[in-house]
């Protein structure tokens, strides 16, 4: 108890003296960043778990890309389960002059089996949930529909108005205010329209090429549900899958896990930086405590007493940091949720205490791994130091000390990323960054120190000190470099990437896709396009044109090309069955499970390019042209034979060429194209894309009136949605990076402070020798400028490299070097270090030298 009291007294003293304040702040930042992300993901996850049955709309769902087979319905009845049918597909709806794409959902009267639908009889004033909303009893009556508020806005209609869907007219009976299974639909192409299952046939919308999803919802006591599940599992066919409560919204879960991983790693970066800060402060603290320890030892304190004294002091500090950090994190997660507000529509339950515990543990681990090694040294201070001040101080540089810290970091990383590959990549990336900047720093410092001759005394002495303090100088460079790099990446580089991505799209690229065109509509539709002067412009050539040329171009309307589209599933490659489970990566698994959109063509399109093999000649048959990207993913080669199941018929062809396709052009393209005649007997619909000038929106209305079964997809709107999601997510990540930046600043401060004593002392000596303020400042400036300069250069190199890698490797864009990156990096580095450094050593030039020397002992 005595030890505890003494430890608390020491802590109060050290905090008051500012000694450990930086350490406390570093720990608080680390804990807060982990807690913020932890609380956030915990809330979203428990929302997912809590609403699982509601999200599913039942206890179990059978999902298929074709109508549900009779055997499943029979099995459900046999087990006494309640069932509900859900059929979904996108379609155009119109009301008067307005048309809009809508997500149609036709449900049987039993829907939903779990959860509640809420509706209102009028729009809310602000467009959001109106005050008068209520639980929906049942589903829309035949002849009426319920729609999402967004659809009313798009069409300019109210409850009670008429709306046309396919061949039929309906009455809008209510506004949907809450749909049980859409709380996490953050990527919905179009607003919802709910109608009665009985009305679906009369719309005439379900035809070849319609993208229809079928869902059988089931609910009942656990035993029968389990029995059905057993039966269904054994009888699942192609394109059929079961979704239970546990894998409800699997795609949302996967997305959440990704986000969690990403945010987790971002928060971990701040933990790593904070750990470096903790280490620097603890080391300086240790050096200052050496005398105290030596004296205590002389007075008879045992090693154990000393150790427990300091351990207790730091433990109390860790607990303090944990409490403050968790509180901060709890507040900060609200900001995070606010930033992602459009993406999460569900009401989130309050956060649990597990994330707090985890963040707390992270704080203590960092303290243990990075403050303990220097502290352990204090234990072994020789009492003789009281007599001989110049007795060498043992540095905590033993391999064990660093190993402890490193393994703590490695452990945290593994826990946060969970994935060995990600773990290695991040660890490797950070290590490479640190090592490279350290080496670069070392090389540049050595080079700078060689500038000796021919410079003034201030600069020369500054450079000499820089080299002598190489260790701490390099630490400062690495820390500062990491901080500046994060800043550059988040501002300049990110902006550049977003801009070049945006500019990469031609202004007149196709912005509308039309799907579900029937064979007998092809000629009519072509005539329609001609009548309205619509053309598919924006081909490869116009992308290279100057903007002025593009603007002045006369709107010419090349004939709109309609492409045949056949849906087929890849069943065998070279006679071997394709088994999705055996595919190595997720993307190939998805491709193997999904239906391909196939096409056939006589000639090669001008915007596709052959990269291997040759296009077929007239008379060639049963040949396939495959897009090179998918060929790589599925490991397909020239000469391979592929068999597709097309509507029950097996169609086989041989790969005669590989094509390169410009997906960014937003034109219709296909992974696999067959030679003429290959898919002639298959059910075929047509697809096209065209550019619709903004002022011609009305044309779409005319098209939908003339061809009610066509779906017109507004690619521009989808693109905008993708962008806004990307913006929101990157803002959320940026928010977490604020902690990283804070931690970077702390390390910078700690690094500068760690050599502050030396600098002040040297300044005092120089003053004694007659150095004027300007000369002392000049010396320090030389040192600070070089450190800031090197850090800025290192940061600019890494930020540019990351920008280059992302744009070339991931976005497939040519990289344009931004000269502001190094400029801003260097200015930030130099000004930052100089300001912090001058502030830290101001006393040395402003008070009598002896005071400084005495204060530093």
């Amino acid at each position, binding site marked *: 108890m005595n030890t505890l009291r003494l430890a608390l007294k020491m802590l109060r003293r050290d905090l008051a003296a500012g000694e450990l304040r930086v350490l406390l702040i570093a720990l608080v930042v680390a804990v807060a960043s982990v807690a913020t992300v932890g609380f956030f993901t915990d809330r979203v996850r428990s929302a997912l778990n809590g609403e699982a049955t509601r999200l599913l709309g039942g206890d179990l769902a059978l999902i298929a890309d074709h109508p549900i087979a009779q055997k499943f319905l029979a099995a459900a009845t046999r087990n006494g389960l309640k069932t509900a049918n859900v059929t979904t597909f996108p379609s155009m709806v119109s009301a008067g002059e307005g048309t809009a794409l809508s997500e149609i959902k036709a449900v049987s009267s039993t829907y939903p089996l779990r959860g509640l639908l809420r509706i209102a009889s009028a729009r809310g004033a602000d467009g959001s949930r109106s005050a008068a909303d209520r639980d929906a009893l049942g589903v829309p009556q035949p002849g009426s529909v319920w729609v999402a508020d967004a659809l009313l806005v798009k069409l300019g209609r109210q409850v009670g108005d008429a709306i046309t869907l396919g061949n039929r007219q309906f009455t809008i009976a209510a506004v949907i205010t809450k749909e049980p299974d859409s709380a996490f639909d953050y990527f919905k192409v179009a607003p919802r329209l709910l109608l009665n299952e009985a009305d679906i046939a009369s719309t005439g919308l379900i035809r070849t090429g319609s993208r229809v999803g079928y869902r059988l919802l089931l609910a009942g006591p656990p035993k029968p549900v389990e029995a059905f599940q057993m039966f269904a599992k054994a009888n699942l066919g192609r394109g059929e899958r079961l979704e239970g409560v546990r894998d409800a919204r699997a795609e949302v879960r996967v997305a959440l896990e990704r986000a969690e991983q990403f945010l987790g790693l971002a928060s971990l970066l701040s933990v790593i930086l904070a750990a470096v800060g903790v280490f620097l402060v603890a080391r300086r603290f240790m050096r200052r405590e050496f005398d105290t320890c030596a004296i205590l030892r002389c007075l008879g304190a045992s090693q154990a007493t000393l150790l427990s004294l300091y351990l207790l002091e730091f433990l109390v500090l860790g607990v303090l940091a944990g409490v403050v950090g968790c509180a901060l994190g709890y507040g900060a997660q609200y900001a995070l949720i606010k930033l992602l507000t459009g993406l999460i529509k569900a009401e989130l339950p309050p956060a649990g205490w597990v994330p707090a515990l985890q963040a707390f543990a992270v704080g203590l681990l960092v303290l243990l791994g990075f403050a303990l090694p220097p502290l352990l040294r204090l234990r072994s201070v020789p009492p003789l130091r009281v007599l001989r001040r110049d007795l060498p101080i043992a540095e905590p540089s033993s391999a064990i000390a660093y190993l402890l810290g490193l393994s703590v970091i490695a452990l945290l990383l593994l826990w946060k990323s969970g994935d060995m590959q990600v773990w290695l990549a991040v660890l490797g990336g950070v290590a490479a960054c640190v090592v490279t900047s350290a080496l670069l720093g070392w090389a540049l410092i050595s080079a700078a120190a060689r500038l000796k001759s021919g410079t003034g*005394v201030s600069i020369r*002495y500054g450079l*000499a*000190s820089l*080299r*002598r*303090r190489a260790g701490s100088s390099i630490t400062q460079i690495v820390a500062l470099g990491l901080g500046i790099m994060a800043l550059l990446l988040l501002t300049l580089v990110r902006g550049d990437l977003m801009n070049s991505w945006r500019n990469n799209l031609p202004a007149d690229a196709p912005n509308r896709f039309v799907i579900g065109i029937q064979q007998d509509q092809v000629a009519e539709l072509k005539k329609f396009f001609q009548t309205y002067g619509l053309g598919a412009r924006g081909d490869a050539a116009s992308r290279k044109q100057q903007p002025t040329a593009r603007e002045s171009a006369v709107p010419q309307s090349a004939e709109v090309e309609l492409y045949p589209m056949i849906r087929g599933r890849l069943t065998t490659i070279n006679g071997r069955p394709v088994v999705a489970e055996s595919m190595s990566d997720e993307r190939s698994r998805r491709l193997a499970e999904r239906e391909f959109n196939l096409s056939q063509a006589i000639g090669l399109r001008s915007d596709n390019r052959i990269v291997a093999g040759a296009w077929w000649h007239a008379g060639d048959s049963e040949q396939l042209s495959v897009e090179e990207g998918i060929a790589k993913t599925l490991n397909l080669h020239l000469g391979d034979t592929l068999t597709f199941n097309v509507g029950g018929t097996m169609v086989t062809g041989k790969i005669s060429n590989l094509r390169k396709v410009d997906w960014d052009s937003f034109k219709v393209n296909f992974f696999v194209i067959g030679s003429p005649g290959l898919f002639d007997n298959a059910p075929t619909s047509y697809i096209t894309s065209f550019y619709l000038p903004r002022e011609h929106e009305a044309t779409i209305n005319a098209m939908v009136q003339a061809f009610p079964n066509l779906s017109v997809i507004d690619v521009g709107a989808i693109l905008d949605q993708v962008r806004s999601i990307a913006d929101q997510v990157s803002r959320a990540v940026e928010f977490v990076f604020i902690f990283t930046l804070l931690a970077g600043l702390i390390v910078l401060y700690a690094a500068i402070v760690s050599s502050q004593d030396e600098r002040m002392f*040297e300044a005092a*000596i*120089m*003053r*004694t*020798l*007659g*150095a*004027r*303020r300007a*000369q002392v400042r000049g010396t320090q400036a030389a040192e600070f400028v070089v450190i800031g300069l090197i850090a800025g250069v290192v940061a600019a190199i890494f930020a540019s490299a990351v920008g280059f890698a992302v744009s070339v490797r991931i976005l497939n864009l040519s990289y344009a070097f931004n000269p502001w990156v190094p400029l801003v990096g260097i200015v930030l580095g130099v000004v930052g270090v100089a300001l912090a450094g001058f502030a830290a050593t101001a006393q040395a*030039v*402003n*008070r*009598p*030298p*002896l*005071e400084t*020397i005495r204060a530093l002992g």
Partner: protein
Amino acid sequence: MKNDLPHLADDRRIIVSAEALGKRVATSDMQLTILTEVSFQVTEGEAVAIVGASGSGKSTLLGLLAGLDTPSSGRVVIDGADLSTLSEDACAALRGRLIGFVFQSFQLLPALNALENVMLPLELAGQRDARQQAQEILGRVGLAARLGHYPKQLSGGEQQRVALARAFVKRPKLLLADEPTGNLDAHTGQQVIDLLFQLNHERGTTLLLVTHDEALASRCVRRLKLVAGELVTSSEALAR
């Protein structure tokens, strides 16, 4: 003050004048008085020892005389300049021009080697032949072979000699040294003492030395004895 001792100003100029110097520091619960009403004068070329028990305020006095510290009361006049009227920066300039200071614990700059340490005061003053002068004086203190060594690589005695060379290299009018032999063995101490007085004779440098060392004190013309912060004697007669 000037009228009190007119006879001393006849042939030799007064270079140091301490006038009623007092130094007090505030501790947590009380005011600690280190020096009280210390007054004396030193003329050019004199060698004066400041002696007294540990804690009597010797080092504090020396720091005040060099303008490294500010007195709580009284004033210091160096070569006619009242330090209390000078800014910190002007004080530094005056030190650069007139004063050499030798710290008890040498205080060499660890980033510079012996030669660079000695060159530093000359360079700070903007002198051109710094290297040559520094080499010469290091030769005088017997360190010609160790010019490129860093403080860490030098023994205590060698460091002390570099510190002396650094203090002397600018040919200061006034050399203030705090226990210049305190860290040295008798033999090395004697060497340092010889060096000090040799330079005193050759260059007419005024020496003001804080010391415990009887051998050193006995070489000085005059002793100033401090007891608990007060000057008890400053007579030539008591020097022996």
